[in-house]
């Protein structure tokens, strides 16, 4: 066991830490509200290779592992990056795996400067894709319908939805212009794998949201005095933060394990992806909720940063579903595995 990042991984962390610290201060996050998209920040992230790293050399990328992406995702969450990093990475990986001429052409469009391709996390219902991540700013959306992987060029079918997490999401009506990228029994598995990757990366982003939330709460609890003492000396405050810090520490372990397992423990990877995202959703919620509450009335004010974390902690993972849905997804996988074993 080695919980330390490798030298290369540490370099990656250092590089992106420096990037986010310089390019994504909290003022920039506020500046991107309410749309939740900062085109300039995204262009800079792309120039850093944040999208190219997600696919292998043959597809024109760098061949980063899911764990590499996860380490960046944690920083993205910590800085509340207003850019479509995770959905963009998941989309290009899905297209690269799909293969075939249509998907390969879609991949090359997705990697073209100035264009953006996203992925819908759920199949369409009543002819529309609901709450597509980055759907409000994407040029193209890849989605799964029946047993087919489809693509839709977005012209005026997208309706941006204002939302809790200041995310550039949109409801997208599917019209006759949608084209098939791939069909057949393998397609469903590819889509589920893409969803697992989104869950694992989101888990890591939530670790970033959770750990920064705790830092904000701890800083405040040390400085703010009530009844003549710092409020952090009250157990009613300290214990809530201690519980949340424990959950976030544990969340970081399982989120990184989930990303690691994608390459190193294929049998357990799907359940770890789902379980880590459920767990980290709960942990980030707990951390941001406690931290906001201990800010007292200031936590309720828009001027204080903790509300930015509090809203995203709930909203980001909700695009997939509630934590229970993630837990159930992981359990269904575990149960089918033990049926096969037995």
């Amino acid at each position, binding site marked *: 066991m080695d919980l330390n990042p490798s030298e290369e991984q540490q370099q990656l962390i250092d590089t992106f830490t420096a990037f986010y610290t310089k390019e994504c201060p909290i003022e920039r996050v506020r500046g991107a509200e309410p749309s939740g998209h900062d085109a300039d920040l995204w262009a800079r992230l792309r120039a850093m290779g944040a999208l190219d790293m997600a696919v292998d050399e043959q597809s024109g990328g760098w061949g980063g592992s899911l764990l590499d992406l996860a380490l960046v995702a944690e920083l993205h969450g910590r800085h509340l990056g207003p850019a479509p990093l995770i959905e963009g990475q998941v989309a290009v990986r899905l297209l690269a795996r799909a293969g075939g001429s249509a998907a390969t052409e879609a991949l090359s469009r997705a990697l073209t400067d100035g264009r953006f391709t996203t992925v819908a996390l759920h199949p369409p219902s009543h002819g529309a894709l609901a709450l597509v991540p980055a759907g409000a700013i994407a040029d193209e959306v890849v989605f799964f319908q029946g047993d087919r992987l489809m693509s839709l060029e977005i012209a005026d079918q997208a309706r941006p939805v204002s939302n809790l997490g200041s995310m550039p999401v949109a409801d997208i009506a599917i019209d006759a212009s949608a084209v098939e990228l791939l069909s057949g029994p393998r397609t469903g598995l590819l889509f589920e794998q893409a969803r697992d990757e989104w869950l694992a990366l989101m888990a890591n982003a939530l670790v970033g949201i959770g750990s920064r939330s705790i830092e904000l709460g701890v800083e405040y609890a040390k400085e703010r005095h009530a009844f003549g003492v710092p409020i952090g000396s009250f157990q009613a405050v*300290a*214990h809530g933060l*201690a519980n949340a810090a424990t959950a976030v520490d544990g969340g970081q372990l399982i989120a990184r394990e989930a990303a690691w397992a994608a390459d190193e423990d294929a049998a357990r990877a799907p359940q770890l992806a789902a379980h880590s995202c459920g767990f980290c959703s709960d942990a980030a919620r707990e951390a941001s909720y406690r931290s906001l509450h201990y800010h007292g009335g200031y936590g309720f004010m828009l001027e204080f940063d903790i509300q930015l974390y509090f809203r995203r902690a709930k909203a980001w993972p909700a695009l997939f579903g509630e934590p229970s849905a993630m837990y*159930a997804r992981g359990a269904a996988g575990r149960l089918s595995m033990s049926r096969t074993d037995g």
Partner: protein
Amino acid sequence: MDFRLGERSDAFRDEARRFLDEHLTTDVRERMHTTGVHHNWDFHKARAEQGLLAPGWPEEFGGQGRDALEVLAFAEEFQSAGAPTYGVGTTLMVANIIRHVGTEEQQRLILPQALSGEIIIVLGFTEPESGSDVAAAQTRAVRDGDQWIINGQKMFTTNAQEADYVFLLARTNPELPKHKGLTTFLVPLRQPGVEIQPVFTLSGERTNLTFYSDVRVDDSLRIGEVDGGWHVMTVSLTFERSGPQGGDSLRLLHAMEQWAMASVDEEGRPRSEDPAVQARLGRAAAENEVAILLARRCAWIQNSGGLPGVEGSMAKLFASEALTRQSADFVDMLGPDGVRGDADPTAIAGGIAEYALRFAMGTTIYGGTSEVQRNIIAQRGLGLPRPS
């Protein structure tokens, strides 16, 4: 980054499984269940004979010089199998203290007997009037020539009826501030003046209240300096917080998964396909993975030459609170049948959820309560100020 424990740990885990297959018999389990004693001499001695009592200790002491992750892999198997380990746990903890702060004579006398499985040592910290506030102990030790005379009471002296010694925290100087007037002794239990009164607990485990009336202990069995007991305790409390986590939860989850796969609801649908059942099972599985990882992180830190302090508190806090939550959740999941007792033949999965609901409450208390762990995490981990 690598989340595998490594080949040596995997192989040693297999060895643990082989040992358990052979020695954790129905009879051993049955006796634990009926007596409430989580120590079994045959099991204990078989373990010692195979050199498996203290695998992390150096070979010169009868150990195998295993690293912290190997020892953890081994201990995880024992915990998730529900093997009797309380006796060996306290014995090794005290042996470790003697190895670090004991005299050469004490080491010669105690360590060979403890590590060969001949004796067990139990803990005498808690008193009727002091638990988490360990340093408030009132049991008195008064010097009498080369001996000390002990008077007082100790609470939760688990396995005292099986043990040769109690590692006792006593007040030697009531004039000094409470942390400074304490001394630790290794008190022989089989002597006049020691009275052991059984105490039965919510989980069916037997513990004891022990009374000491003019009990004598040689000064040669004093551990550490006179009035230096708090220093010795700081060492020992660190040991108590490391170790495997999540094993009891794994056993519970496994039984609940089996139930979900084998039973159907009122409409004849398999429970395992009910999303509400899946959500409960999945949340428990996620928490168990986290509990195991938090404990493994401690062993990894030890292997890297560090001392897990806050990390140990997090592992203990998380695992015990998770078991508490899950056991109640699973009793709910089973519906009214969840209350059928573990002694009743109609109980589901041997009544493991109902048992765990009771058992879990102990785990949030012994070895440092959840509140004590949260104080450690808040103050040492997060740097929050101490209460004034």
